[in-house]
């Protein structure tokens, strides 16, 4: 029995499951139950829930790129919003553990050569004390390679969709990724702009394909 990372309850796990090697969860059934996994038909590229499987209008309009697509795990519902806000803005690093199993499984399935975190600008990193993307990778027991950096920029979150889409490239190549497939792991996929900018910088570093895994899929 452990205490849930979000409330006073204990995390419950049938003992026979533990016996068969199941790992006990870091949330209680109640808190876990509020998170909604994405199921049903999706956009093949960005994991947007759709009426029937295919490619969504957004992804159509992006055009050719080395970016091979995104896999999101959960809907960005209100429980996920407050969980990620506590994790990222309040700085509760421990919450990365909630997604450790998910991230490990998805990373394995993606079959990429290296994993890369989405960097923060230097001032943002100082403010937050840690990078949420690195936290998700580390908590899953995986290692990330520093292939790109990020310049100082204005606050992303405050910008409108249009402003974000036209925002300039803030990422730049750092390391060598010659001919490699790269997996990017982050907390939220909204318009896909961030991860596509990341992919561009990774292309400059020599990467041949880029995929992403994100915890939540926001946007409609």
């Amino acid at each position, binding site marked *: 029995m452990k205490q849930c990372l979000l409330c006073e309850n204990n995390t419950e796990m049938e003992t026979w499951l533990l016996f068969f090697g199941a790992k006990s969860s870091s949330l209680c059934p109640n808190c876990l139950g509020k998170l909604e996994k994405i199921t049903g038909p999706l956009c093949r590229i960005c994991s947007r829930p759709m009426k029937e499987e295919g490619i969504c209008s957004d992804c159509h309009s992006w055009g050719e790129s080395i970016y091979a697509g995104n896999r999101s795990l959960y809907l960005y519902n209100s429980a996920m919003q407050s969980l990620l806000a*506590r994790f990222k803005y*309040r*700085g*509760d*690093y*421990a919450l990365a553990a909630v997604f450790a199993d998910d991230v490990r499984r998805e990373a394995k399935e993606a079959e990429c050569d290296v994993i890369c975190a989405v960097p923060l600008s230097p001032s943002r*990193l*100082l403010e*937050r*004390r*840690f*990078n949420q993307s690195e*936290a998700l990778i580390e908590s899953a027991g995986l290692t990330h390679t520093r292939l790109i950096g990020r310049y100082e920029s204005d606050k992303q979150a405050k910008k409108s969709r249009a402003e974000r889409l036209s925002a300039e490239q803030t990422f730049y190549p750092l390391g060598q990724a010659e001919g490699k497939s790269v997996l990017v792991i982050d907390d939220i996929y909204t318009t896909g702009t961030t991860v596509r900018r990341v992919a561009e910088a990774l292309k400059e570093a020599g990467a041949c394909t880029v995929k992403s895994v994100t915890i939540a899929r926001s946007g409609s």
Partner: protein
Amino acid sequence: MTKVSFLTGRELIDEEMIYVPDEHTSTRPAIYLDNGRLRCNRCNNTKNFSSHRCARCGKVCTYCRNCIEMGKISSCTTLYRWNGPAPKHPDHAGTLHWTGTLSEGQRAASVNVKQAIIHSSEHLVWAVTGAGKTEVLFQGIAAALSDGKRVCIAAPRSDVVRELAPRLAAAFPDTPPIALYGGSPDRSSYSPLVVTTTHQLYRFYQAFDVMIVDEVDAFPYTFDPSLQFAVQKARKESSSLIYLTATPNTEWQSEVKSGKRDATLIPARYHRHPLPVPATRWCGNWKKTILPVSVQLWVKEKLNEGSRLLLFYPHIETMDKALPLFKEIDPRIESVHAADPLRKEKVELMRRGKIPALLSTTILERGVTFQGIDVAVIGAEDAVFAESALVQIAGRAGRSAECPTGEVVFFHYGKTEAMRKAIRQINEMNKLGVERGLIDE
């Protein structure tokens, strides 16, 4: 806002410390090793920590998960406090502008509270629901403010803070209180008089000469040792401590009865009518029937009489199932629970008499006054209905002088000790009220 008014009495983390430290500033680390055990200086947590490589200090840095909602505290965080001279009280601080009169029961409590404040001692006011406990504080606060003392009233929830602040501002217009809660506009102001949620006291250090804790038995204060620590940290070493409650826990009740705890009991309401005594009625397995026949008949009868009803269910799940059945009786019937986004609006509609009946979880057990209502608990034997919860719930009925009576029914599937104790407590209070001449019969 000036530097002095911002800093006086507060203890702040790096992000909050917007002034350059001066000769009056002292610092301490936010997290320290206390005999080999990590301890948070802001909330006293020793159990709930986590750590990560920190971009600020470059080390693996530990942070406190317990008080993280107040702004993250890490091993590399410094706490700042400022020990310069505090702002002077305004002229006429402590002049009381309240013109009401105290009931006989209130008067005794008022005298004792004032004595405790003058002598920096501890005192409990045990006042039944509807006794009028706020007015009991006025004389004591006036004495403290005239004496140049700083006064704090800590309440469990922000709605209580927002309700108390204007009443205090009217009574003490020369020192209007600042109201502190998450997101409050007064966050960085100063007043000798402060009304605050207990949570905000994390940000104070030995600031107050008078500490008044309202609803001391309420959640979360009673269940959270770190909030109790925050209250102690925010008071000066020599200060008075006043507790207010309508429902002290069993331990405090017996301490009062044996004279071990300094206390004043106000056993009767301001309007001199007895407290409504709950009736108990067996209603079968309500978890199955959801709206038992006995409840249905009672509700219909009361609504036909023109009464308005407050109905308590122990859990959201059963309440949600019950609501459509109640709407068949009257479609205007609504329900509220803690996370209901329309909670305020629904409570307001009920207050204005626009809703014939409101279903609620224990969230409305305290702090709300609806005029002329009857009250029922469905599933009164459930564990969420402790003695204090049932006394508070019964206390929602008959509060106003215009409608001083009301019916209270505990519908149950097996009587509990908590139900018996609650009814015994209410009967005892009524008996005491009559004996002391505080109730007209």
